[in-house]
């Protein structure tokens, strides 16, 4: 699977997938059905998995975190790509991806950004690949991991938080310099 093909597929995600709805009413997106379909399609198991499909109560709990729920919708769309079939992806991997990885990253990125920003689109794709232990075509494991790390919002957030105190000090100096300059300019007794 090529990353660019997945990016292209993800960007074609229908806008319905960004609906915040868990009901099964007419015209509404049925999250439970989506997840069930994806689990069955990817694992190739269409008969069992009853215990693996999230219940209505589970979905209702999920719906309290809107960005996570929408990210799951997008993941369902992404994973529906034919390249994910026959890859021996386990239910454990899918559940970890859906309920842990996406839950964490949704704290940092709004759902619409996954489709709008170039780097976020690629990050979402690579997160799915990493969670399902798939190495994209044309890359080694190390290259794929490095690329994902370079795009990771969580990692970037950690770096920015660590360096924040240094930046705050710098901005304080900057502000002092600006204020000093303004005071010098305003001094009515300064001469040429």
């Amino acid at each position, binding site marked *: 699977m090529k990353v660019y093909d997945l990016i292209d597929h993800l960007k074609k995600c229908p806008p319905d997938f960004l609906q915040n709805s868990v009901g099964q009413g007419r015209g509404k997106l049925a999250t439970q059905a989506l997840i069930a379909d994806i689990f069955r399609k990817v694992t190739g198991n269409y008969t069992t998995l009853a215990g693996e499909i999230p219940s209505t109560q589970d979905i209702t709990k999920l719906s309290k975190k809107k960005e996570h729920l929408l990210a799951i919708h997008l993941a369902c769309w992404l994973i529906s790509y034919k390249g994910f079939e026959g890859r021996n992806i386990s239910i454990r991997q899918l559940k970890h991806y859906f309920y842990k990885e996406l839950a964490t990253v949704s704290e940092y990125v709004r759902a619409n950004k996954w489709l709008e920003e170039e780097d976020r689109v690629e990050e979402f794709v690579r997160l799915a690949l990493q969670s399902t232990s798939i190495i994209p075509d044309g890359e080694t494991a190390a290259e794929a991991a490095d690329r994902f790390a370079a795009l990771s919002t969580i990692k970037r957030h950690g770096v920015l938080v660590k360096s924040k105190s*240094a930046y705050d000090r710098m901005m304080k100096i900057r502000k002092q310099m600006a204020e000093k*300059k303004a005071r010098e300019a305003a001094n009515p007794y300064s001469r040429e």
Partner: protein
Amino acid sequence: MSKHTKIKAIHQQWRTDWTAAKKTWSNYIKLREPLWCFLTKDARLAGLTGSFAMIRLTDHRIVIDLEQIYHLELGDYGLQILAHEIGHHIYTPANLYDNALLLSRIRWVMAGMEDRAPMVANIYEDLLINDRLQRTKELDMISIFQQLNKETTFSKFWMLYMRTYEYLWRLKRGTLAIDKKFASPVIDADASLIASLIRSYAKNWLDGGGRFAAMLYPYLMEEEDYDKSRVSVRVLLDAEAAGKDAGVISGLTQIDLDGIAGAIDPRTEALQQEGKDLTGQEVMAITLGINLAGGNGPEQRYLNPGVYIDLQQQLNPNIDKQKLVNNYYKEVALPHLIEFPVEDKKPTGLTSMEGTEEWNVSDPVEQIDWLETAIYSPQIIPGYNTLRRIYTPDNDGEKEQAPLDIYIGVDCSGSMRNPVRNFSWPILAASIIGLSALRAGAKVMGCLSGEPGSYLETKGFSSSEEEVLTVLTSYLGTGYAFGINRLKKPFEQPLETKAHIVLVSDDDIFAMLNGRNLREPSDHWALIKTALEHAGGEGIIVLHSKEDWHPEEVQRLREMGWQLFYVTNEAELLTFAAAFAKEKYKQ
């Protein structure tokens, strides 16, 4: 092949590439072929100061240093490099005004380090252009940087720059950011934010300038880091001096509110924004603490004049500072120009010849028109057949309306601010009155005086805007008041053409009238009375003072015919300048 032959070959190839480079952007671009400099010393004369190419927005030219191209082994990349330079003319900065505006926005963020701003602006423009050429126009810009990396001395800044391109173009780590000793998660984080910024602001690039400057700020803050950064990017700085020799760029006196709103640190924005909408408070917290209430002038909308001058001088180091000061106050004054008061005047039109009539013996001999007389009769008999010319005025109106001239005297003593460093309301008021008068066709005599000490005045009543503004916007800072002696020279005799007198001062003028601390005190009261009489127009003294101070002196002035206006703060001088015509002169 000799070096010279190879350079000639590069020249031939690049001339061929020129048309294709233009077509990369559009089939309709009309730009002159670049100035090809075969030697670096010729390129220096043309304005290049280290880079292998440059643009000039003044004459829409591109200058190429072919010798340096040869040394850097960039001869195979003519299409890309020329397309890049064209991008500066077509895309960013594209024109002198946008160039100035971008620099101004970057300077807001780089407060205290404004000297770095042209380099930051250049790098920002390069990122925008190169990204468009690589991703949209499908030119191979990667190879150019790979070639440059062979010679470039890496620095943190250059590492950030290369890593940004790796993010923009989805390149494997190490494709361009080759020096691993500079690799760090901080640079990765910053590069990813810059890449996102470049993509987001590709269309409205002016709005991203402040953010970009905030990203680069930590890399340029220390002098050593800045010096190393310059060494790395020196060959690429093709637009730093794009606005040189452009003259004064209009429209930059007002505070750029959009620019200030965009002065945001994307790092802080990313930390605060992730996963939620920002409130107004949070947006304010992200901006870099620029004091929006620090504006000058009417409605506090204008830059400090010193800041304005610094910006213009950074754009064009050769510009005359006095022109900038004149332009600053002119631009601030322009929205407030008033309809100048006019008075009836007898016309002084030219006379033209209408015909001839008989010359009588009692008329002056020099009035005889000998030619007409000889034509009339070859036998000339004085008083009988001698003729003289008749002249009549070409204007048959009995009277016409014309504005009176005006004398503007401004107190420039020690308590007054230097109008170059601090906004000066008295100078603004004087500029409004002076420019209004000139616009109406009147002449103006300006006088700055701070006495005992010095003074500066125009050479009489002048029609030259430059001369008048140059005097009014100068600075003396001497003495304690406007020197009444200054009224002696222009109003020694009654004027042929009437004039108003406007004096702007504070209540130290009364001490001057009473002759305090003067080496040779003269009768200033008589002088000021005579001046008003000889001027023939209205006399107004605008005082930054209180009405109930010096009541006797005030009464004495009023009895002479002087009118006094009081302002309690300098901003009211603007109101006075507008009221000057309306209250006293409008029919």
